[in-house]
């Protein structure tokens, strides 16, 4: 009775439901992507679901990780998730893997599962999942998000391309892709995670066309969906790497809050404040103390910049400025600061009269 709506569904029915029941799925991460994947795979009746998670519930998770309760802060995500999912569907068997995924445990953990669903939030884990799936010849369902955009694909499925066929190696250590927290709209992982769950069902049940050799990109602000085609570029892997973690050492660049910057400027501290935004942004709002050098001009201006005083780099939200700050740091500038949150934070926290955009 529980699966009545799937049993009645043309193209699904009892045979496909049985395939779901006999499947074992591993979900890496019970966070923004993992929660919707787990909710729907549980509801639909996958037989066995493994979860790899070692984090605890934080208040900042709750804006997108809709499975957890506010009262559960500090508790294990893994066991809270399993408790809640069992209340939804006690027929599913859950396998807790209360650990971080590592080169030491990945192969053992993956072995009993049919499909791996990558719901992690960092490049180190994503490349480890890829390599372990290649070694074990298991398909993995990929989802990833950035601000208002998402990507979904199915890798290593019946000989299809892998994650490394698209992106052979991860971004450099210390880059913002790895290390900055750039925020996310709460509903975005809900969209991408439900797509991932759908791909899992398609693979297990042999219905429709899984996204093998295809990358779906979704722009949720403008509802633009694109599907990019690609092919396997086999690079044999014989074993896992020893280390997948990508260090977040950002060199000599230090964060500077707008409050600190405000104090410095009020106190007349000598600082070279460089605003790297574009001219149209500069027109909207600026700090009178800033030197205006759009991002792409900075490289050519290095000789004109002072190295004898501290440098603080400013942009709209603190991302472009981080890039430039790292560039200055690498070029030997001493005491390089990145203004966290950018002029946007200044407008909200220091000067409420300032124009925003």
């Amino acid at each position, binding site marked *: 009775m529980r699966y009545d709506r799937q049993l009645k569904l043309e193209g699904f029915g009892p045979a496909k439901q049985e395939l779901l029941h006999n499947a074992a799925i591993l979900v890496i*991460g019970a*966070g*923004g*992507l*993992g929660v919707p994947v787990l909710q729907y795979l549980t509801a639909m009746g996958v037989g066995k679901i493994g979860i790899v998670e070692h984090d605890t519930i934080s208040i900042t998770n709750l804006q997108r990780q809709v499975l957890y309760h506010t009262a559960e802060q500090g508790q294990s995500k893994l066991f809270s998730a399993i408790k809640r999912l069992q209340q939804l569907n006690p027929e599913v068997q859950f396998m807790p893997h209360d650990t971080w995924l590592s080169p030491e445990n990945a192969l053992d953990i993956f072995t009993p599962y049919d499909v791996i669903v990558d*719901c*992690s*939030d*960092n*490049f180190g884990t*994503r490349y480890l999942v890829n390599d372990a799936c290649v070694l074990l010849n298991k398909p993995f369902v990929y*989802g*990833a*998000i*950035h*601000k208002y*955009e*998402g*990507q979904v694909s199915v890798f290593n499925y019946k000989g299809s391309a892998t994650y490394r066929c*698209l*992106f*052979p*190696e*991860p*971004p*450099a250590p210390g*880059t*913002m*892709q*790895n290390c900055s927290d*750039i925020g*996310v709209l709460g509903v975005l*992982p809900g969209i991408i995670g439900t797509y991932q769950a759908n791909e899992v069902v398609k693979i297990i049940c042999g219905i429709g066309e899984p996204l093998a050799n295809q*990358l779906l*990109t979704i722009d949720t602000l403008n509802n633009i969906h*694109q*599907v*990019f*085609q*690609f*092919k396997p570029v086999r690079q044999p892997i014989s074993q896992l790497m020893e280390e997948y973690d990508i260090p977040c050492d950002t060199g000599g660049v230090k964060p500077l809050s707008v409050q600190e910057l405000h104090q410095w400027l009020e106190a007349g501290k000598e600082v070279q404040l460089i605003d790297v*935004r*574009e001219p149209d942004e500069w027109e909207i709002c600026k700090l009178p103390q800033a030197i205006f050098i759009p*991002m*792409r001009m900075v*490289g050519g201006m290095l000789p004109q910049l002072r190295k004898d005083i501290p440098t603080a780099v400013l942009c709209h939200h603190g*991302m*472009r400025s981080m*890039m430039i700050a*790292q*560039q200055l740091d690498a070029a030997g500038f001493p005491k390089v600061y990145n203004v966290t949150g950018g002029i946007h934070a200044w407008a909200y926290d220091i000067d409420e009269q300032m124009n925003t955009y």
Partner: protein
Amino acid sequence: MYVNYYIIVALSTTMRVLLFGIAKDIAGAATITTTAVADVAALKEWLYEQYPALRELRSLMIAVNKVYANDEQALLPGDEIAVIPPVSGG
């Protein structure tokens, strides 16, 4: 059954490039215009020069007309070019 014949007349010396993910943030725009470049390798070189931070991404997927393109692939005026960086958020 029907047949379409397309005759594309190029008056172009520039190319439009769509940026995704963090590439959009680095360039500060969703679409940029390049001078016409011969192939994907030259496009990447141009991008790295304009936006040095892109090089730090190390893996930058370029798609031409919705298909993954190698460095060797020639670019033609009118091609729909997309720059897709890796994304790790979850």
